């Protein structure tokens, strides 16, 4: 039977109903594959959307979409998007000693990368020096080891600090590492307004997901607010916090949970900064975000678009921000580390390309593409290059960078954006009812939600309801790996420890002692810690010396072994 011709008196709903019955008949002949059609996060999704579906979720062009560069920024934060400036291609790097990482930095800059991004090793992330007994076996393994200003200076040797933007992924002792960066810039005579970059400095998501903490929650949040307050006054172009969903997602959260918990963390920093007496428009423009880009193409695009819309409304309507700069959610994104497989690792190149494309179509401002070998070890130079080239192919060859919000107006994408937004707002409401995100984290609420999602996904993998190619389907006998991986041996630990010993013997012990006493005093009095910590690192007090001083006052955080 031929479908009836469109009739002027029929509404879309009428025609949809007719089409649905023909679809049902057709499906009898050609049944659907026996799987549940859901997103990676297990969200039920429709086969097809029409204007009626948009109406059913209350979609309104003016209110929900508008134009790029304007409220509510669903379509991106810039007017001309990637025609003006491509997203920043920022590959995260850091391993072994500062000298080794410095070489990788220079290689990436030579190859056309436009910003630096520093990964620190576990001891540094936990506020321990390389010679601490707790650092055993971990020095330089997951990132670069930085125990003092001397290491920081070595790490950025020959790199023009006033010209590159630097991102530093550190949270627990972020205030100390930032102090080192500021001290180094000061020593090199770089004007404060030319110091540009981003400190991750998002401690709440550490308790939620990444689990690299030092102090209990309240003093740790105080340190974050100290850096916001100091940065706002003195370093106007430094992004003080990169509110991060990446780790939340990697720990097992769904896309909606990632979005909701990240925005809720951001809300907590905004509220605490306002409590400190700051004006929202003074500090909010320097808050930035960092999300995961996972496998589910449209879910991810919807997530980025919803993120910008929710944040713009929160900032304007809830916190009374008047500056458009405060309303804009600017975000970095990284392709999903958890999606990479050790099995048939070349497939990871494809996964990364698909994810990167979703990030770009979602309008991110900066992007890291993972290397194919990152599930095995830290990436080799060659693997990093393929990852960077993936971004360059998308930017220069695919043509997608010609358009602002190319998927805007797609019935499906607008429907999904609305759905992700609505579900995220439900979580935010629940967190409000708990007394805000700090309370929720103290009660372990987001942690438990994420644990449940991670377990749910693992069960789905086991039942093959979700497929990982090469892992639970399409497995093949593998030959020995086709490429080399980077191996960090333990000699780094020894060399770094010797360097630190030499530093300690040549610095002025009296100055170090006095500087650490000032840190202690500032902490006891509840003052902003930034000036005294800059003083301490400038005379080469080590990371751990400063952190131990603060641990002495604040204590340490402990998590119970719940699962």
């Amino acid at each position, binding site marked *: 039977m031929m479908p009836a011709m469109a009739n002027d008196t029929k509404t879309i709903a009428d025609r949809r109903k007719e089409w649905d019955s023909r679809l049902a008949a057709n499906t009898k002949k050609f049944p659907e594959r026996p799987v549940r059609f859901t997103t990676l996060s297990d969200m039920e999704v429709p086969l097809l959307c029409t204007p009626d579906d948009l109406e059913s979720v209350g979609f309104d062009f003016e209110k929900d979409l508008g134009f790029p560069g304007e409220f509510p920024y669903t379509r991106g934060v810039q007017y001309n998007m990637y025609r003006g400036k491509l997203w920043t291609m920022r590959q995260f790097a850091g391993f072994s000693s500062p000298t080794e990482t410095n070489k990788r930095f220079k290689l990436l800059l030579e190859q056309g990368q436009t910003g630096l991004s520093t990964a620190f090793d*576990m*001891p540094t*992330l*936990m506020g*321990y020096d390389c010679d601490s007994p*707790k*650092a*055993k*076996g*971990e020095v330089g*393994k*997951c990132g670069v080891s930085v125990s003092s200003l001397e290491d920081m200076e070595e790490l950025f040797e020959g790199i023009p600090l006033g010209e590159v933007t630097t991102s530093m992924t550190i949270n627990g002792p972020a205030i100390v590492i930032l102090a080192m960066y500021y001290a180094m810039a000061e020593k090199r005579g770089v004007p404060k307004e030319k110091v540009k970059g981003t400190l991750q400095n998002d401690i709440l998501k*550490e308790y939620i997901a*990444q*689990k*690299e903490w030092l102090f209990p929650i309240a003093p740790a949040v105080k340190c974050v607010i100290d850096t916001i307050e100091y940065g706002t006054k003195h370093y106007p172009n430094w992004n003080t916090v990169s509110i991060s969903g990446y780790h939340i997602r*990697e*720990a*097992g959260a769904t896309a909606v949970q990632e979005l909701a918990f990240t925005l809720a963390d951001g809300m907590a920093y905004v509220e605490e900064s306002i409590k400190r007496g700051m004006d929202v428009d003074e500090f909010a423009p320097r808050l930035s975000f960092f999300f995961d880009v996972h496998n589910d193409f449209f879910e991810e695009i919807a997530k980025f678009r919803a993120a910008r819309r929710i944040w713009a409304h929160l900032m304007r309507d809830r916190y009374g921000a008047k500056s458009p700069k405060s309303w804009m959610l600017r975000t970095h994104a990284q392709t999903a580390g*958890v999606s990479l*497989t*050790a*099995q048939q690792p070349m497939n990871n190149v494809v996964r990364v390309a698909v994810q990167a494309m979703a990030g770009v179509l979602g309008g991110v401002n900066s992007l890291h593409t993972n290397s194919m070998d990152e*599930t*095995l*070890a830290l990436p080799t130079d060659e693997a990093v290059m393929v990852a960077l080239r993936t971004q360059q192919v998308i930017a220069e060859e695919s043509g997608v960078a010609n358009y602002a919000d190319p998927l805007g107006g797609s019935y499906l994408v607008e429907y999904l954006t609305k759905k992700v937004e609505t579900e995220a707002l439900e979580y935010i409401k629940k967190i409000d009812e708990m007394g805000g995100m700090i309370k929720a984290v103290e009660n372990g609420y987001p942690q438990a939600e994420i*644990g449940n999602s*991670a*377990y749910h996904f*693992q069960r789905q*993998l*086991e039942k093959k309801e979700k497929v*990982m190619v090469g*892992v*639970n389907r399409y497995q093949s006998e593998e030959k020995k*790996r086709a490429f080399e*991986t980077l*191996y*960090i041996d*333990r000699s780094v630990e020894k060399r770094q420890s010797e360097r630190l010993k030499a530093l300690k013997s040549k610095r002025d012990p009296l100055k170090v002692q006095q500087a650490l006493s000032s840190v202690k005093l500032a902490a006891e009095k509840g003052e902003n810690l930034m000036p005294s910590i800059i003083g301490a690192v400038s005379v080469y007090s080590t990371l751990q010396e400063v952190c131990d001083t603060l641990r002495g006052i604040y204590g340490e955080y*402990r*998590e*119970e*072994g*719940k*699962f």
Partner: protein
Amino acid sequence: MNQTVLTAPQRNRIRVLIAKPGLDGHDRGAKVIARALRDAGFEVIYTGLHQTPEMIIQAAIQEDVHVIGISILSGAHNALVPEVIQGIRGAGLNDTLVLVGGIIPEEDFEGLRAAGTAMVFTPGTALEEIINYIDKHAPSR
């Protein structure tokens, strides 16, 4: 003699310690495995994060565990795993089955085995496979 597949009540006598040594905070895998083993019927104890080898050894002795599953994703396994194994063997836990999970490069498998690790499980391993392995190899004391 061990059967290949145990029933939940048979598993209930097997105590498994899931341990996170070192500074590594990646606990998604450890928690998922702890939960899956508990759901399968084992008695599971999870140490929580940031444990020194000494803390893990003490927990193993106190609970007199049949199995230790050590989860490491930071690259510190060559330093930390042998220390835990020496500690528990020194304390008389001679038959405790030691399993390691996480991001472990193939070239390190042999060293870990030589140190007394029974099996290394890397990402992508089915939970069922780990459960079966424990069924088969946990000491029958």
